[in-house]
Each structure stands twice: as C-alpha cells, then as structure tokens.
C-alpha cells in the first residue's frame, strides 16, 4: 500500500461554480501546489470568520486524478448547514478557500485493480464514484464497472449527460439510475432506469450484467443508505473487506 503524506493548508482559488442540480453545485478549485491524489479521496475545507471562529468539513473530489493542479467538488446544500450554505450562498468564481488534502485511503480505486467493480451512490454520494469513473475512462480501463445511482427525482441526477455518454461509449460500463420519489415500479430495471429504492432484487438483477459477483463494491451516500446497501452486499456474498463505504452525513 502506498502511503501519501498528509499535506498542509493551501489557498485554492474557485475558478467556476455550476448549478448541477437544484441542490448541488459544482466548484472548480485551482490549487497553488500540485497535489497528487487517488480517485475516491477527499479534501478538508476550512472557513474562518473575522473573529477567528473556524469551521471545517470534508468534501470528496469528483474530478479525475489526471489533473493535479485543480479539483472539482460537488457540494449539496444542507438546510442551515454552516459550510454547505456558505458555498451555495456566498462562494463565486474568484473566491479564495483554504483547503488541505488529499485524505482517506480505503475508499479509493486505481486502474491497477482490474476486476469487476460495483459502485453504488445515493445523491451527492456519487462524488467520489465520479472520480473513479472518470479515471477509469481516461486510463482506458476495460474492467467491467456498474454504477447504481439512487436519487429522489429526475433533476437530482448529477453528471447525467456525462454518465449517459460514458455508458454509450463503453460497453463494459453499465449505468442504472433509480428515482425514489416516483411511484414504485417493481419490475426489473429497464434501459438503465428504475423507480424505487435499491433493493436486493435490483442488486441481483443488475449485478448479473457484470458477468458474476463483483470483486469489490464502493458505496457512498447518507449513513442510512450506506448501512442498508452494505448489509445487502454482505448478503450477496461479497467479502466484508471488499465492501468499501463512505458516509457523508447522518
């Protein structure tokens, strides 16, 4: 295992802000120090008030590790959230933000892992999975990958056109988007679509497209989502240490 040295704080410049969905904005941050990272890792952000009060939070990198002087973050607006509200209400192109990273090492994927992977994301939990998929695409990865992406409704689908393009370009990549706020339809996912919470039946039928049980799964999202999916993956026989999880919040 390669150990990356923890780095100190650096002042990043926000170069663009994009409304990706009604609740999530994408932020491009330019880093003054060239920073290598692995897909799946996160950065810490620190905000400071005039009187010295500080708040820190972690955000996963959504961009591919191919770029080392900028990172993209996908930040969901949490109601009354201290840091996410600041990003949504105040941060704009040109804003300066203190960041440090990368951190985290268990929830990472690199192209040297050539076995089939299953990625399951809930809402903004797509963030670290997006970095993995972008890295896989840019390195010409041809190991099978399946993404199950659960969101409330259609306009919550982050990175929609990019993911759909990836699915068209790469026959080893399968995409299932499931909308949980529509009337549940219990048939099998059709043309990459379903309308219910991810359950055991959906996992079983979509995993079949990987051509066997995945060698590893990455699950990211809210805590209850990750907990429920983690248990189902253990039930389908994935080894405990190959079920990797990242929890974003309560």
């Amino acid at each position, binding site marked *: *295992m390669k*150990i*990356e*040295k*923890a780095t*100190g704080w650096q*002042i990043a410049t926000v170069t663009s802000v994009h409304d990706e969905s009604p609740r999530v904005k994408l932020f491009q941050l330019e880093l003054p120090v060239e920073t290598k990272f692995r897909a799946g890792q996160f950065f810490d952000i*620190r*905000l*400071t*008030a*005039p009187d010295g*009060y*500080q*708040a*820190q*939070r*972690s955000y996963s990198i959504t961009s591919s590790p191919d770029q080392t002087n900028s990172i993209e973050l996908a930040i969901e607006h949490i109601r*009354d959230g*201290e840091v996410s*509200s*600041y990003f949504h209400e*105040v941060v704009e192109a040109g*804003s*300066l*933000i*203190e960041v440090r990273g990368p*951190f*985290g*090492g*268990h*929830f990472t994927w690199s192209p040297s892992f050539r076995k089939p992977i299953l990625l399951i994301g809930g809402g903004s939990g797509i963030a670290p999975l997006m970095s993995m998929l972008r890295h896989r695409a840019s390195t010409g990865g041809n190991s099978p990958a399946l993404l199950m992406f659960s969101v409330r409704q259609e306009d919550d689908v982050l990175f929609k056109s990019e993911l759909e393009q990836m699915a068209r370009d790469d026959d080893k990549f399968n995409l299932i988007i499931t909308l949980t706020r529509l009337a549940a339809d219990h048939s099998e996912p059709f043309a990459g679509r379903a309308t219910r919470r991810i359950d055991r039946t959906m996992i079983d039928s979509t995993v079949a497209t990987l051509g066997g049980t995945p060698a590893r799964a990455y699950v990211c999202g809210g*805590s209850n989502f990750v*907990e429920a999916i*983690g*248990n189902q*993956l*253990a039930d389908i026989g994935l080894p*405990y*240490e190959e*079920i*990797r*999880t990242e*929890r974003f*919040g*309560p």
Partner: protein
Amino acid sequence: MINNRFFGRRRTETSRPLPPGQYLEDGFPVLSAGPTPNVDTATWDFTIEIEGDTVGTWKWNSLNALHQTDLRTDIHCVTKWTKHDTDWRGVTIDTLLADAGIEPPTGFVMASCDGGYTTNLPAADVIDGKGLLVHTYDGKPLAPEHGGPVRLLIPHLYLWKSAKWIRSLKFMEHDVPGFWERYGYHMYGDPWREQRYTND
C-alpha cells in the same frame, strides 16, 4: 485567512470549549470503513494478549459478571463532530487486567475487531480508568452500527481509536499502525492537539 461574509452559524454557547476544528452534534453519526458485521453475543469472546501470550479470555456472560463502570463523557470524531455528555456502561481495561491477575502492561496495544479493523494505542492510554469495553449506550444495548455488542471506548482520543466490534487487545513493545493509521491518520489522535492526519 478570513472568508468574506463567513460568520459561522453553528457557533454554540457551550459550557466547555470544543477541540479545534470540531462542531457540536446532537445526533450520533456513524462512521465505519465497511458494512456493519453481524456479531452474536452467544459466540462472542474477548481476549487480552501480551507479547503473543493469551493472558485472559472473556465470554459475553463473564464480561457482564465483572464490576461495571458508568461513564458520562464527550466524544470527538475525526469527521469534525463532537458530542457532549454521552452515557456509557461497561468494564474498564483495569478491571479486566485485574481479573486476569496481571500487572498493567507498558508499551503499546493493538485493538482488533470483527471485520478486520485494527487501531493502535499507547498502553498508558487504555489503563488507569482511561479505557473501557462498553456494551450499553444511553441505558440501552449498544446498537450494531455503533459497535455493538461491545466496543472499546477511549474518549480522550478521536473516536476511530474506540474500536467497534472489538475482539482483542494485544499488548506489544513497539508501536505499529492500525487500519486508519496506515491510511495517513495520526498514530496518537489527540483531538485537543488536532492530531487528525499523520503529520499533524
């Protein structure tokens, strides 16, 4: 560096200061590297080893038969939240060592868990009332996602040191990194010195 128009909406008037970079949380968020393992108290046991020799093993019933300690304490997670006044019940590591009839060891200790998780600590940080095996949280059996049936509790260090689903403590002469410590988290993890990552 001051952030324009940032005032901090989660500042709380607390009786006690928070460790640097932490915020106060009312809930009890979950953090684990993998899914929650299924641990059965009927087959659960806990072992203490010193330099590779087993010096004591306890089953669920024998752990519960030992002297129980109640502890109200604050807990600090490296993901930035701190929770005040959490109530725990369990057995101090001192009680276990005394039950095994051994002197408190020196050096370091590795905690190992169901699911393969490990974390390292100085031996001095688990004795003298600083470390417990807890099975009860807030008057109820400790929930599986929070480490039940039994987790280690070392409240003065970041919570990743309070290993969930604990099965053994192995005392050793030299410090060896555990699971998160190998991934760049601090070897000691004192929240008051903000020792989150390796070089902090």
